[in-house]
């Protein structure tokens, strides 16, 4: 495991109480991994395998039941305020505030971080332009297409210049052409800006297209397979990895 890890899980578990009060269920089971600075790690797994739970633990939105979680050397749940401006999240759905225009949505994080107003406006306009949304600054979310809304949410995450980007299946609800364009744009932006990114997906192609490394999860969230994509540029090598991922995923039974 790398020593200069930006994100590190050590034997992390997360156990939830069942909503009906009949016992508990384990969503994450003694999970350990490390992600280095500047790395893009794709986390792949079937629906319900605990990917999003792991994501929420990294984001500091929920607390691990057991184990050690370290993000930039701090606990993301307990040291909540430390992470102001350090983590940017792109969610599965765009999560735009309907009462804010596209521009105001991008501005949100900057306003929360109390960035100077004129500087905030300039940053928000720049990110909207980079994501091809010039001319739509004053549109409310309902007037934007699904792809445009997701672009706004990406702009919102990048605008605060976070060290870490967390993405939870951000393109899963988009058509393939739009998703492909946004994937390429996303990778370009992450690389250009030297970010560390965790990208959750349930699509093998997407994971291999985006990730420097792919972690395949089995339920409850634990690593069943890990593959280095960067450095395996030849078609035969990538095909071997794809086949292995498929084989590992097929070993898992359907969710209970």
């Amino acid at each position, binding site marked *: 495991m790398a020593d200069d890890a930006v994100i590190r899980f050590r034997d992390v578990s997360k156990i939830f109480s069942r909503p009906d009060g009949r016992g508990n269920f384990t969503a994450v089971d003694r999970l350990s991994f490390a992600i280095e600075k500047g790395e893009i790690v794709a986390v792949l797994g079937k629906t319900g395998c605990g990917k999003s739970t792991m994501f929420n633990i990294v984001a500091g939105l929920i607390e691990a039941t057991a184990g050690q979680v370290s993000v930039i050397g701090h606990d993301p749940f307990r040291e909540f305020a430390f992470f102001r401006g350090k983590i940017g999240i792109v969610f599965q759905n765009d*999560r735009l505030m309907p009462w804010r225009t596209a521009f105001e949505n991008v501005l949100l994080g900057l306003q929360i971080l109390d960035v100077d107003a004129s500087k905030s406006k300039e940053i928000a306009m720049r990110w909207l332009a980079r994501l091809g949304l010039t001319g739509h600054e004053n549109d409310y979310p309902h007037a934007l297409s699904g792809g445009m809304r997701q672009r706004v949410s990406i702009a919102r995450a990048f605008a605060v210049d976070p060290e870490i980007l967390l993405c939870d299946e951000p393109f899963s609800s988009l058509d393939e052409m739009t998703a492909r364009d946004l994937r390429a744009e996303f990778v370009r932006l992450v690389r250009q800006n030297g970010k560390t990114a965790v990208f959750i997906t349930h699509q093998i192609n997407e994971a291999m297209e985006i990730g420097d490394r792919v972690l395949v999860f089995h339920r409850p969230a634990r690593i069943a397979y890990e593959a280095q994509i960067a450095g395996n540029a030849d078609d035969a090598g990538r095909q071997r990895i794809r086949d292995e991922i498929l084989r590992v995923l097929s070993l898992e039974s359907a969710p209970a």
Partner: protein
Amino acid sequence: MTRARSIRFLQAAAGLLILAAAWEIASFFVPHFIFPPVPAIIARTVEILITGSLLADVLTTAARIFAGLIGAFLCGCILALAIGRSRAIENLLTPVLTFFQGIPALSWVVFAIIWFHGTEFRIFFIMVMTTLPAFTFQILDAFRSMSKDLLEMTLSFRPSRAILFRFLIVPTIVPGILTAFKVNLGNAARVVVVAELVGATGGVGYELLRQQQLFDMAGAMAWTLQLVLFVLIFQQIITLIETRVLRYRAVAERAI
């Protein structure tokens, strides 16, 4: 004015004109102290509006309604936020508010007369007590309908409580607050008349009592119309605010 709005306006006007025509026809067959002619009612209504001392009564009632609504709204906000944040407070207060909801306005009038001396405080107390439960429950509903997705998204930027309140909670509950004002305005207008009827020396309710003692139906109708006009104007103001504040909402072209 758009064509659709013009049609709506004409339809509403037609309904009122039919009512006025039916009243006028009735006045031909029934003694005028029971059904006074419409022109007589209009003349009395105009007289009230252009006579300073009489208009002061209308404005006094309007001020009492405003004061009562604002008082109930502020108390309702505090109670709703307290209930929304604590299950124990919810368990404590919900039965009390439900109990208050069951108390008739007239009972509050009697209680106020027994408990307090000052007329204005009595009326304020009655207004607050009769509209407080509805305000509290409506604001609480609006607070609870807050999107968990938007809450998580906003929390990912690590806002302070004050910023979270300003950027997320306030915009979330504003539609509910406007609805609460609309609903409670009608209730408040009815209650204030009862309160003034029994315990005041001025205002629309007091004047209605005088018209009853004088057996002056035209006067009673004219004073009632003052209150109706006030409610309609205030409803229109709320609608204008709603149109402005909630302009982000998508409007379907086809009506349901």
